[in-house]
């Protein structure tokens, strides 16, 4: 067995379509992922830039501070060297070789410190200027004070010496003081820069969050309209409008939901119209059956009646046969009428032409109809119609049909020799009728099904009682069309009572 040679799988056109749709109308999940991603990137950028800036500030501050300390240190060294220079001149024993040597060592220290200070002050014009002043003051002092003293010639006046020394020392002090001030102002500057940076970072974070909130509310808004359309559509559908469809739109999810809703609504509509079609077919079928059977039943019944008209010529046996044919054709007629009523009731075409009418003649006619069967079974039918009943608002034939159906039902279930009662009384704008039998009753579990069509009870006794199972449902339809109610109660073993309430004409 070899596998059939398959065609190579072609790129499905759906993939391209889906990709295009995904780009133009991304799904909710994609939108949320993108939103979260952008938010995270924004937060990370703001944080990294802010923290980096803080580190830079801190490093710059440390560098500057350390340079400033070194410069201050250099200035201190200059001062020490200057003091050494001075003390070299004032050595005990007066100017001499030793003093010259000490002086030279001190000036070498001064030169060292000056070089160090120069290199440190290279980037600081103020410090450079102060240093220049210091160097100049030192040079003047050496020229005008140190040299004459060392040569021991034209010694300077103490005032002049003090003045020039003061100039050099003051320049040192200014340099030192300047560095202290510079550091202080740097500290201030760094503090304010840090504050600014922290504020900027916070502003960045708040802006990112704000953007995220706006993006998410946009997302929610993009969903809320299609969702509310769906809710509206579902309500209309639930309200029975099978034409209800929703406009498909919004993110992919609501689009898919909208399409699914529309498919469901279409399917519902299709099923419903199919059901209506079947119901209509059933009603038409029942009407046609009822109609088509009427002609042959007319013939059967008519010819049997013809035979009965000549009953004198028939043997007793033949007469009994013809009577059976007649009874059966009457049953058949009843069944046809019931089927037609049921079909009309289902199609909503069972109509009632109600008018004001007396109840008593209707009750009498129904009793007259059932009387032969009651007699046959040795039963008793007690009629009790209250005197002075108001008129009914009803169609007499239909109420007679209801009573006949109920009496037929009672007759069927009441045993031989049993009792059946029909009572009627007025009740504040209504007329209440009760048909009570003395049959086996109806179990409580069966009570709700009594008015279902074709219900004939479960036990074999009621099955054996026969009937179409249409009498009670038709009775209920007719009573309800009259604006009345019908209910049943039963004590199993004792019998059942059907209670009608019909509107009176007053």
């Amino acid at each position: 067995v070899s596998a059939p040679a398959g065609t190579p799988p072609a790129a499905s056109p759906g993939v391209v379509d889906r990709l295009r749709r995904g780009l133009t109308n991304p799904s909710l999940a994609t939108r949320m992922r993108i939103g979260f991603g952008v938010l995270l990137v924004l937060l990370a950028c703001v944080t990294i830039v802010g923290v980096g800036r803080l580190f830079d500030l801190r490093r710059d501050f440390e560098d500057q501070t350390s340079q400033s300390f070194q410069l201050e240190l250099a200035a201190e060294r200059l001062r020490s060297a200057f003091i050494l220079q001075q003390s070299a001149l004032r050595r005990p024993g007066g100017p001499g070789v030793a003093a010259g040597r000490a002086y030279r060592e001190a000036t070498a220290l001064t030169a060292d410190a000056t070089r160090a200070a120069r290199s440190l002050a290279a980037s600081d014009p103020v410090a450079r200027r102060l240093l220049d002043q210091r160097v100049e003051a030192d040079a003047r002092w050496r020229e005008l004070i140190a040299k004459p003293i060392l040569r021991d010639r034209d010694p300077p006046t103490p005032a002049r010496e003090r003045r020039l020394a003061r100039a050099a020392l003051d320049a040192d002090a200014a340099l030192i003081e300047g560095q202290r001030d510079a550091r202080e102002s740097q500290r201030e500057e760094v503090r304010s820069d840090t504050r600014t940076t922290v504020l900027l970072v916070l502003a960045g974070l708040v802006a990112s969050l704000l953007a995220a909130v706006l993006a998410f509310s946009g997302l929610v808004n993009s969903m809320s309209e299609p969702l509310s359309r769906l809710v509206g559509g579902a309500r209309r559908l639930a309200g029975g409008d099978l034409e209800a469809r929703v406009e498909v739109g919004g993110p992919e999810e609501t689009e898919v939901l909208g399409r699914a809703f529309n498919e469901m609504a279409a399917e519902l509509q299709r099923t419903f119209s199919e059901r209506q079609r079947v119901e209509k077919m059933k009603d038409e079928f029942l009407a046609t059956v009822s109609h088509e059977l009427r002609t042959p039943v007319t013939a059967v019944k008519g010819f049997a009646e013809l035979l009965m008209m000549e009953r004198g010529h028939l043997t007793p046996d033949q007469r009994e046969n013809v009577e059976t044919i007649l009874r059966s054709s009457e049953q058949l007629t009843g069944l046809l009428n019931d089927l037609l009523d049921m079909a009309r009731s289902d199609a909503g075409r069972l109509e009632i032409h109600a008018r004001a009418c007396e109840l008593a003649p209707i009750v009498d006619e129904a009793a007259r109809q059932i009387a032969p069967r009651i007699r046959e079974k040795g039963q008793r039918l007690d009629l009790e119609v209250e005197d002075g009943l108001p008129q009914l608002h009803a169609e007499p034939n239909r109420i007679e049909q209801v009573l006949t159906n109920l009496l037929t039902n009672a007759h069927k279930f009441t045993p031989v020799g049993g009792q059946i009662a029909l009572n009627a009384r007025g009740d504040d704008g209504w007329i209440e009728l009760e048909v009570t039998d003395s049959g086996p009753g109806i179990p409580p579990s069966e009570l709700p099904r009594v008015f279902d069509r074709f219900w004939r009870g479960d036990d074999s006794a009621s099955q054996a009682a026969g009937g179409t199972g249409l009498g009670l449902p038709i009775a209920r339809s007719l009573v309800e069309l009259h604006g009345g109610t019908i209910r049943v109660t039963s004590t199993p073993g004792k019998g059942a009572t059907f209670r009608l309430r019909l509107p009176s004409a007053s």
Partner: protein
Amino acid sequence: MTRILVADDSETILLLFRKRLEHAGYDVITATNGEEALAALAAAGPTGRPDLVLLDAMMPAKSGLEALAELRGSGDRTPVVIVSAHPGTDAERAQELGADGYVAKPIDWDDLLARIRDLTAAA
């Protein structure tokens, strides 16, 4: 003798009508649709004219209701009873069109014969 024209598309039903009505003492002529019934009425001379017409509501070629409408349209007031297998629906229509009576299938003969008696006696 009182003459009755019966129109029905079923031969069996026509036979039943003939037997039953003749048994009751009427002269019966038959037609199998509305067309034939109208033709029979038109063809009948002044002496052979039916005193009453029984029309089945539903027949091929021309229904009883259509024939009734035509008859009344031409000013013919011969008593007409509509026989129908559609209890309820045809009754109203028959009355609108000017029928003098209406009976449903299966036929209650006592009722029908009483009506025929009344209608022909009045004529």
